[in-house]
């Protein structure tokens, strides 16, 4: 079985290295095909492992070799395939296989084709390390690895200023969170003496709650960065500068969910500290609403989807924070499928529209791109959570959890968000595929994507539709490891009211979106309409001015402070002090060298003067010595 494990883990690496071999040479198809095939292999191995885990309930734990060992510390490269990690493996390998195949078409005309696959496969490998590692250090390797690949892929079109800027932003923001994670790891090590999940979690119940709380907080800070939770969320929208397959894979399906995975993985810890859990849930709910609100007005197709991702991550955290780890994980999985699908569909549209991203400039594309149209619509339906698509099973469950746990505010927020989700999803669909063919004004001649790209997307479509069916099987498997809380509303009536109410609310939102955005009056907004000048709109389109705030008050301040440190402090204070000391000596020399006037008379005077000074000192001392008795009486008379 270890063979499958290693195959699943290292195939992407091999694929990456293979593609990297061609890194500097002109595009060659093989650099795309081989990694895709290898990912397929990885997927199949994961599947085998999944079946194995499902059937037998056994987990596989291997220790490949020692990584670091010093003092008390012992960190191996250890990998574990258990119910949680195998779920993640399936999600990761499946989505990435699809994305790889898709990207062969998508990146067809790009000069950096080979490089792209090297990065992409490397990302998959890192992600696999992240999910499969059996210890926090290994997790951290993957954690940073995906960060690196994300940097490389966001900034893939490195000639674009905005892309490289976004890449750096993403990396640095993630680093801020990584610091939290690192501190969390240190805390775990110094308190439990190990970084292995099993041993560490086993030791935790005996620890002080304060310590555990700190651990929970710091680990969650790590999760916040990777999963772009408020206030570290701005990078995710900017990350849309990367190629669309990257957005689909990294910024929708896999990497951003790593934070959720971490919380799920650390469930024994979070179970011990429900307060932190509640905080996580609240933050999740807040982010869900917050991100959804920004998605309402955004005029960048990919950014809308990105905000939607953010919002869904909020859902997941809400679930995980409330202790419903399996629900969070389930939503993670379902979300991965339909969101990746949505992104890939958006990619098709972009291709068709020659990289135009403003949906107001599209319209009526449904006629030209039937396949894409169907897929994106279904994905949106799934995202909105309409029965019986995947979203319904996972998302409604989260609502139920919130309800059952008696966190009604969270519930209300999440419910509202569900409506908003439906609205903005279908706003997008409506604007892109329905209504007038506004694109004609811009002289664009859209066309459908390659057929194999659509074929490649089909597994995702399928899963987005039917994933709900796996719920019970999944539940049975995963609760071997995670707390097996079943969430049932106590009374059937309430349940039905809730479910149907939610559905109706969502459908109403969809209908409203359709009504509003399929009308023939839709024009490309030019900043003149009343709505666009309203405060709310401005607030939302400017993302609550948060990026503005970051740019002006943090980035700029940092830059200026750095400049001050260099030009003022380092050069004018620290260095100037050193040079100043040296100069004191030199200047003293320059000033006093006149003492050596070269005139013999002056020299003689110096000599006599020196003697006289010594003499007067001697006389003073001699007098003092001779009259020491009197001086003493005198002083004592003064009371000294």
């Amino acid at each position: 079985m270890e063979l499958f494990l290693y195959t699943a883990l290292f195939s992407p690496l091999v694929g990456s290295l293979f593609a990297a071999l061609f890194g500097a040479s002109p595009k060659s198809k093989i650099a795309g095909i081989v990694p895709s095939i290898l990912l397929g292999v990885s997927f199949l191995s994961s599947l085998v492992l999944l079946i194995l885990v499902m059937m037998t309930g056994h987990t596989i734990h291997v220790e490949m070799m020692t990584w670091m060992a010093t003092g008390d510390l012992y960190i191996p490269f250890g990998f574990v395939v258990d119910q949680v990690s195998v779920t993640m493996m399936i999600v990761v390998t499946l989505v990435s296989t699809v994305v790889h195949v898709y990207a062969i078409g998508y990146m067809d005309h790009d000069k950096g084709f080979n490089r792209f696959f090297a990065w992409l496969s490397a990302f998959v490998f890192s992600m696999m390390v992240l999910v499969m590692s059996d210890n926090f250090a290994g997790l951290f390797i993957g954690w940073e690895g995906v960060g690196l690949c994300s940097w490389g892929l966001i900034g893939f079109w490195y000639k674009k200023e905005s892309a490289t800027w976004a890449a750096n932003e993403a990396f640095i923001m993630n680093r801020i969170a990584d610091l939290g994670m690192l501190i969390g790891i240190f805390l775990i090590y110094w308190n439990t003496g190990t970084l292995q999940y099993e041993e560490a979690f086993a030791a935790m119940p005996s620890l002080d709650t304060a310590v555990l709380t700190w651990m929970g907080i710091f680990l969650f800070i790590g999760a916040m960065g990777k999963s772009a939770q408020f206030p570290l969320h701005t990078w995710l929208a900017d990350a849309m500068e990367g190629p669309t397959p990257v957005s689909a894979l990294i910024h929708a399906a896999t990497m951003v969910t790593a934070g959720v995975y971490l919380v799920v993985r650390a469930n024994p810890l979070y179970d011990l500290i429900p307060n932190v859990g509640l905080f996580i849930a609240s933050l999740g709910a807040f982010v869900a609403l917050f991100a959804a609100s920004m998605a309402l007005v955004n005029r960048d197709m990919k950014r809308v989807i990105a905000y939607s991702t953010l919002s869904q991550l909020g859902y997941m955290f809400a679930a995980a924070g409330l202790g419903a780890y399996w629900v969070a994980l389930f939503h993670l999985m379902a979300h991965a499928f339909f969101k990746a699908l949505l992104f890939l569909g958006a990619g098709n549209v972009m291709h068709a529209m020659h990289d135009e991203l403003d949906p107001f400039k599209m319209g009526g594309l449904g006629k030209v791109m039937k396949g894409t149209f169907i897929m994106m619509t279904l994905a949106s339906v799934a995202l909105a959570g309409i029965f019986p698509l995947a979203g319904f099973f996972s998302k409604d469950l989260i609502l139920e959890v919130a309800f059952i746990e008696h966190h009604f505010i969270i519930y209300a927020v999440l419910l509202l968000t569900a409506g908003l989700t439906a609205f903005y999803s279908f706003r997008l669909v409506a604007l892109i595929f329905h209504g007038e063919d506004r694109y004609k004004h811009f002289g664009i001649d859209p066309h459908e994507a390659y057929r194999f790209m659509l074929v490649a997307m089909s597994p995702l479509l399928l899963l987005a539709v039917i994933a709900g069916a796996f719920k019970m099987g999944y539940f049975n498997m995963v609760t071997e490891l995670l707390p097996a809380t079943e969430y049932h509303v106590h009374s059937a009536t309430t349940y039905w009211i809730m479910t149907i109410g939610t559905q109706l609310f969502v459908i109403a939102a969809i209908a409203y979106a359709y009504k509003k955005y399929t009308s023939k009056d839709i024009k490309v907004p030019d900043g003149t309409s009343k709505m666009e000048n309203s405060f709310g709109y401005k607030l939302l389109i400017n993302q609550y001015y948060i990026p503005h705030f970051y740019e002006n008050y943090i980035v700029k301040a940092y830059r200026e402070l750095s400049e001050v440190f260099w030009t003022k402090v380092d050069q004018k204070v620290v260095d100037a002090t050193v040079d100043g000391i040296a100069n004191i000596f030199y200047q003293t020399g320059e000033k006093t060298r006149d003492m050596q006037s070269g005139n013999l008379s002056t020299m003689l005077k110096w000599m006599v003067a020196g003697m006289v000074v010594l003499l007067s000192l001697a006389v003073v001392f001699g007098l003092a010595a001779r009259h020491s008795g009197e001086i003493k009486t005198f002083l004592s008379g003064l009371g000294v």
Partner: protein
Amino acid sequence: MFEAVAFYLFAFLTISMFYIAVTTSQALYALSALAAGMIFISAFFFILGADFLGAVQIVVYSGAVMALYAFGMMFFDTTRDVKEKQGNKAIVIGLSVISAVLVVLIVSAPIIGSNIEAFYPVTEGAGNVQEVGMVLFTKYLVPFEVAAVMLLVAMIAGIVLAGKKMDLSLTLMNEQEILEMREESKSKKVLP
């Protein structure tokens, strides 16, 4: 009483002579005042019973030293005032103050240790010259001889420095010039 009168007289004389010697702007005055001061000093030696020393003082200074000086003065125009640019007077004044302090101190406290034993006591009944000879040629034989060497050194130094050979400097001439000079001096030697 005699001693006191003599002391004060000669003290006054030496002080004024030396004062003139260091303050006058006439080289000749200075020279004369110095010579006179030297002679007056010998008076103290006689008062103090150091006859030999007094004799030496007179011989060396008024004879040898002054002769040398006069010899040296032949080079200079002694009739005109020596112009000396004076710098900061404060230093000179300061030094005088300190000297005053020193004087006061020495006057106010007797310097002689109470338990001093003479290492080379004055022998009763012997003349000063004899005593001096006795000590000089036993204990101070080596310094005496070294002093002789020192005088030899001074003599050589005087001869070398004042000699004609110093007129032309080999240090400043290049090889060519030195050779030419050599040739010239040889031919000169032949001529007269």
